[in-house]
């Protein structure tokens, strides 16, 4: 398997919304190569990836549970606690930088 190139690592880091240090750009390439070469054994097993997406066993016993499509709780019931965790706020608004 071709080694993960620095450019590829930079691309993956950007997709993951993180920045890798110079040291990590070196060591992560090596680490991820060794992990992928271990994980790659699954590709040596015959057959193509099936189209069946559902898992059997316990996963097939799980059922969606629905509730009525209406407000599940009173407006403002949890606002105070939740807003207390917001790092940047203005009054009762979550503050973010301009997007457009």
């Amino acid at each position, binding site marked *: 398997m071709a080694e993960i190139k620095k450019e590829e690592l930079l691309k993956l880091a950007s997709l993951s919304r993180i920045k890798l240090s110079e040291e990590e750009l070196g060591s992560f390439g090596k680490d991820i190569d060794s992990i992928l070469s*271990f994980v790659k054994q*699954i590709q040596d097993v015959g*057959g193509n990836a099936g189209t069946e997406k559902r898992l059997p066993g316990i996963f097939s016993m799980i059922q969606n549970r629905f509730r009525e499509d209406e407000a599940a709780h009173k407006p403002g019931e949890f606002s105070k606690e939740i807003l207390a965790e917001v790092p940047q706020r203005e009054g009762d608004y979550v503050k973010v930088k301009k997007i457009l």
Partner: protein
Amino acid sequence: MIDISKLTIKSAHNHLKNGDFGVKDLIRATLKNVEEKNPKINAYLEVYDDVEIGIKKAEELFKNGKASLLTGIPIALKDNILNKGKIASASSKILENYRATYDATAVSKLKAEKPIFIGRTNMDEFAMGSSTENSAYGVTRNPIDPTRVPGGSSGGSAAAVKMNGALVALGSDTGGSIRQPASFCGLVGLNPTYGAISRYGLIALGSSLDKIGPITKSVTDAEILFDVMRGLDPKDSTTVATGEKKNLPKKLIIGVPEDVLSMDGIQPEVRKNFEESIAKFSKLGYEVKNISLPNAHYSLAIYYVIMPAEVSSNLARFDGVKYGLHESGDNLLHDYIKTRTAGFGKETRRRLILGTYVLSSGYYDSFYGKANELRRAVIGDFDKVFEDREVKNGVDIVITPTTPNVAFKVGEKAADPLSMYMSDILTAPQSIAGLPAISVPGGLSKTGLPIGLQITASYMREDLLFKAGKDFLCEI
């Protein structure tokens, strides 16, 4: 002084009921152990400052004769399980100051019994690790030998119980994170059926793999906690109903999967101890059969595709906007990048990269698709061995060692992530298949380090795990 190491939930409850000691005495004795041992072991990241309130409530219940088994029992909580109003950091810098805005369902069910939550325990960041060395808040050490790791990722919870800083603890298991630390610390660790205990309020790692479960000194204690925490939860659609009374067979049949045991890396001493455990079960009247799980050896490779894929998706929520750390940049995108770069530790970053890789176009089918296909094959292997034993020659339980080796030295595997990942080689199959498994102490190595025995049963058959575990440990 009360000797916490000698107490189980039931014996402590009886002492409290008979007035041999009060809840206050029990908690004081527990906190004294924490005070003495935590500076060296680092099991707890925080000891809660409001235990007095809990003590009062619990003592009142005893006075009124309304106490339940868990009333007044000191419990440690892993740092990724939400306890309203308390910090839950998942041992990450990105959640350093995050206070839970609600209780995990497992916690609210326990709270109804009025136990005493002592504090929150150290873990590998976001439960990513097998040694509790990946915490942003320092390494946790094994109370049996502080030069060694307690296992992970629930290493703080296991260490808290082992150092008698709690009677029992909650952990979470994604690929072995309850069973492996229980094994390394000579304790009992239950990884329940997927969905048996609600994941609501558990900080997500791999959502198709994550479970909450107890770490205890006895199988009976694990059963008591499981019974309180399990059940359908409207807040977690993946919960399943368990606990239905089923008939226990008079004589249990054990399956021993030689193809799993012949995998590389199992220490001879662990193997020898395992043979002794089989002999013990035979003596107890269990029938032992050789079975085959031909795809189980792929489990760890499958796990290291599916888990990082789920990590890369689950951890996308940490953006510095809604809660947790915020680092300001030039624009919103730079806010995200600066926050996540400052907040996530090395192993978390490594798995984010790995997860993004296996999900990226061009690799999706060959990694993620293939892993899911093989996941179905592993589930199929277990289904087959647990088939009706009368008609189809199935078995009731499967046993293997919990880990390929005993607790390793702090720092021994830190530089080589793949060798660290191999710690989960015997626990990954059950995680992949969503099966319940329990680790019980199997004995000691020549150097006095615990070796765990892992018992696996079919879906929702925790009852078989409890029966076999109690028989094995001679619990009445």
